[in-house]
């Protein structure tokens, strides 16, 4: 009769194999996506783009690297950031007085 620990050890081995598979898939995908990355880089170069179009709701979330220091107060001086994506992205380092060089 098979012992219960055999089942658990088999599960751990399968788990480790899955982690290995994830690493393999990551390496293969990176190799296959080289062309896509090259195409994206080319578009960025040709069009002189500066930012990802991930958060299109406000100008300072669409182009965080181009934003100025006062953008969260864009409506009036006491108007704090009210866009949801402003809450999940951190402040660009060059606008942060603590990390600015």
């Amino acid at each position, binding site marked *: 009769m098979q*012992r*219960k*620990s055999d*089942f*658990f050890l088999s*599960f*751990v081995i*399968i*788990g480790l194999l*899955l*982690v290995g598979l*994830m*690493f393999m*898939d*990551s390496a293969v*995908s*990176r190799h296959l*996506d080289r062309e*896509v*990355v090259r*195409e*994206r*880089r*080319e*578009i*960025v*170069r040709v*069009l*002189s*783009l*500066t*930012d*990802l*179009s*991930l*958060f*299109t*709701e406000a*100008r300072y*979330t*669409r*182009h*965080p*690297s*181009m934003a*100025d*220091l*006062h953008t969260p107060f864009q409506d009036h001086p006491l108007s704090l950031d009210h*866009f*949801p*994506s402003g*809450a*999940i*992205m*951190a*402040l*660009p*380092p*060059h606008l*942060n007085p603590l990390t600015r060089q």
Partner: protein
Amino acid sequence: MSAIEKQRHILDFTLSSLGRRKSKNIALVTVYTFVLFLLASVLFLTDSLKKEAALILQDAPEMTVQRLVAGRQDPIPKHYIDSIKGIRGVQSVAPRLWGYYYDAFSGANYTLMVNAELNDPTGRVIIGAGVARRSAAGQDILPLGKNDVIPFKTYDGSVLTLKVAGLLPAASELVTTDLILVSEADFKKIFAIADDYATDLVLKIRNAKELATIAAKITQLHPDSRPILREEILRTYNAVFDWRGGVILMVLTGVFFAFIILAWDKATGLSAEEKREIGILKAIGWETSDILLMKFWEGAVVSLTAFFIGIFLAYLHIFLGYANLFEPVLKGWSVLYPNFRLTPYIDAYQIATLFFLTVIPYTVVTIIPSWRSATIDPDSVMRM
């Protein structure tokens, strides 16, 4: 009996003991797996976005020069180009004309950018995939394609209709989803920007080592200007997607501590059945160290099961499921959102971080309180 055989016997016993409280342990593993799934999903998503941004923005302009007026970005006079060109080390200076356009019809914000290739003839646009999709949203028509038209409301209230000359490649959606390329004449018809102004200037520099010096010279020459280096753009995306900061970590920490409290409560508040079990084991000769070993295996079985299932599901969710569950969070109030498949970037550091943030604390948190129950008097427990 060899040490390995002893561990296996204890593991056998632990698994049978876990099986006797099946529903309780299944519930625990489910919650634990969900916590791990969330944590791993955030880690995989933010790290991949960070690496993707670092790769594709390598070719962003080396330096962008803006003009600030009263703390805001303002159009920059084109005569700045001549003086900046005169700085030693500057290879070229080109004006960029771009801005935001709110489309009342679809409720989306577009980024309009001038592209010289559309200057002759004018009246044409090249659009990003998100723009094509959005213009058709809510209507029973196909997405925009070549030769379709898009109406734009100009600064004086009149309508300018531009023809779609082509679509930007879908592969580039991560950087171009809301982009509309227009001719300079059409851009000026929409926004009424004076001929001798540009939105900002982009510079090519001969030697990257001189970037900081050239930036300092530009601010000296034009104190109202603000140079932004490519390195700052790259650092922006490194910081923006830093999962160890911001609200994401706060939310996840809350979830994780709630889970630790649950685990602690489970481990300290032993049921009468569990206490009886420990009592019987001690009465038949198990030592305190064996009981602790059993509790260690109990923690390890629960956390390893959740760990493997959690990270595997997170990998499928982020890299094969297009991070669907996070889409409403990432989308926020935006109308346009890129459809993109992230290239999976995972490394040993991420897996180790997840392991040390979850499996180790859980195993420790269940083993420490068990010390109390392991030193219990078997006689008093069995009389209960």
